[in-house]
């Protein structure tokens, strides 16, 4: 089992995870930057506090299930899994390389601990629903299924088909999490395909919505606890995040959605050969300054 940490320790861990993400992306020479960085806080909270799991027994049959439907955010998933002890952190530098278990998008059969294969968007929530239906048939009510989705991913019709089904069958052990970072490849979400009123959309599909600051680890852990307590409806946590969180030149800029550090000159960013170094310097100095609201 994973040792529980204080909120402050979790916040520091999230910055270690961000540092690894930058190193992995620089080494790989391609991949997505903004989403993995903005998910670092929630993903750290999931793997070090929220999820019931055991990195030494990835197929433990009592474990909670985590599904990363937005598979392009794989770097943050791999980083937290390595930090949690699923595999050696050295392996992180094999991301996207030939022969690596860390495929460009998560592939279940290549790495123990992954619950699904993902990448093509919109397919996680339906699989979460299938898992929950199976648990219901087998009368297992004590396991939770967390499904992380990107906000751009909500353009996919499959998501809303799944949202209807989860509500229909009252699969309240499915907990949806939406990374509301407002960007996708072609621009802001509201430019590409407006999602608002997003809360109203989920509510009208029969879900209970909790909105939080996705960088507030304590708020996220509390939201998960509340989601588990609500049984009459499935719950989705809309987590507002800053894309590229922690690296000043990436924050809020949709250009960083689908590219890695060090491969292109981007307006407002350091020259490409300096991008990784600047990002790492910034993350290391931020990590030293973290003090949560709770203190």
């Amino acid at each position, binding site marked *: 089992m994973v040792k529980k940490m204080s909120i402050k320790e979790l916040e520091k861990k999230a910055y270690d995870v961000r540092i690894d993400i930058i190193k992995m992306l620089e080494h790989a020479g391609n991949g997505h930057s903004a989403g993995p960085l903005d998910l670092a806080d929630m993903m750290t909270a999931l793997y070090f506090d929220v999820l019931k799991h055991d990195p030494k027994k990835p197929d433990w049959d009592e474990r909670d299930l985590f599904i990363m439907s937005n598979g392009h955010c794989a770097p943050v998933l791999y980083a937290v899994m390595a930090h949690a002890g699923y595999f050696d952190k050295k392996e992180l530098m094999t991301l996207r390389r030939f022969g690596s278990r860390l495929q460009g998008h998560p592939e279940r*059969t290549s790495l123990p601990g992954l619950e699904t294969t993902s990448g093509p968007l919109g397919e996680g929530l*339906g699989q979460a*629903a299938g898992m929950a239906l*199976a648990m219901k048939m087998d009368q297992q009510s004590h396991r939770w299924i967390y499904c992380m989705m990107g906000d751009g991913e909500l353009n996919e019709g499959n998501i809303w088909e799944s949202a209807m089904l989860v509500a229909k069958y009252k699969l309240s052990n499915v907990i949806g999490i939406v990374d509301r970072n407002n960007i996708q490849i072609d621009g802001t979400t509201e430019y590409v395909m407006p999602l608002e009123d997003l809360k109203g959309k989920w509510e009208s599909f029969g879900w209970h919505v909790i909105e939080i600051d996705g960088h507030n680890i304590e708020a996220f852990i509390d939201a998960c606890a509340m989601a588990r307590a609500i049984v009459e409806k499935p719950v989705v946590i809309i987590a507002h995040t800053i894309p590229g969180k922690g690296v000043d030149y990436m924050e809020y800029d949709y250009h960083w959605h689908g590219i890695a550090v060090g491969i292109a000159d981007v307006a407002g960013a350091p020259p490409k050969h300096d991008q990784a170094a600047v990002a790492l310097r910034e993350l290391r100095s931020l990590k030293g300054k973290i003090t949560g609201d709770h203190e």
Partner: protein
Amino acid sequence: MSSSMHLAEDLYKKDVTSEPIRKGFGRGLLEAGKRNSNVVALCADLTESTQIHLFAKEFPERFIEVGIAEQNLATVGAGLAAMGKIPFISSYAAFSPGRNWEQIKTTACINQRPVKVIGSHAGLYTGPDGATHQMLEDIALMRALPNMAVIVPCDSVEAEKATLAMANHPQANYLRVARDSSPIVTTTHTPFEIGKAYVFAKGDDITLVATGTMTYQALMAAEMLFKDGIDAEVVHVPTIKPLDGVTLLHSVRKTKHVITIEEAQINGGLGSAVAELLGEHAPTPLLRMGIKDRFGESGQPAELLEHFGLTAKNIRLAAVHMLETNHK
């Protein structure tokens, strides 16, 4: 006719017994559900049409109605399979795998989950519904997927056996079944195994390779050809992937003439599979009968078979012509 195949006794009679192939699936699924409590069924608002209602009535707690949402049909199925269930997902083939092919590829095939895809109302036997509902490209679509077996039974009796075999098969599978009644060719004693082709009629002059409802037409054609003095061998191919190359090559090396017959696009279908096999291992004169790069249209199945040249008579003429041409 090969006696070891135990084909239907009334097969060559005018009033041969007929039944929709999909009915065999429905019975097979009910039986699979009785034998294994992990078998579950999902449907996209076509419960009775796809014959999954038999299972749903007997095991309501193991039946999921996903509504008209085929993408979700596939992903929810994959989620159930992740927890050790054996999900049979059913809709019309035009929509599943027609609409949800990528979900099947990612969540069942790459993800290696044993999702059982049932494409009902495939081919011309869908009849009056017309081109949009006559799925002719399903074999090509599914044959392209790694970790996927493609099964096309010739009648309801074989469909029942195929369904039971699928419940015990570790991979994702595709089962193609038809809407309207078609002649029952086999009996409960006829052998069936996923991955095997069967010689339903022995002959030395030409090999007729058929799948689905076309196996009946090929057998009738062989009967006519016999009267013409031509000894045709009929190889029934209920599994198009993996293809039983041993059985096919054994026949082809003997007859040296091949016609494939299917009620689907010849591009990517059985005809392509056999052409690939022969091209690599035994180049042989080949004629592919089937739908030739066009869509279907409304009509009764018999009218459509006539229109597309897929009757026993058409096969007979093609065989005679092929042998004449090659012996000149």
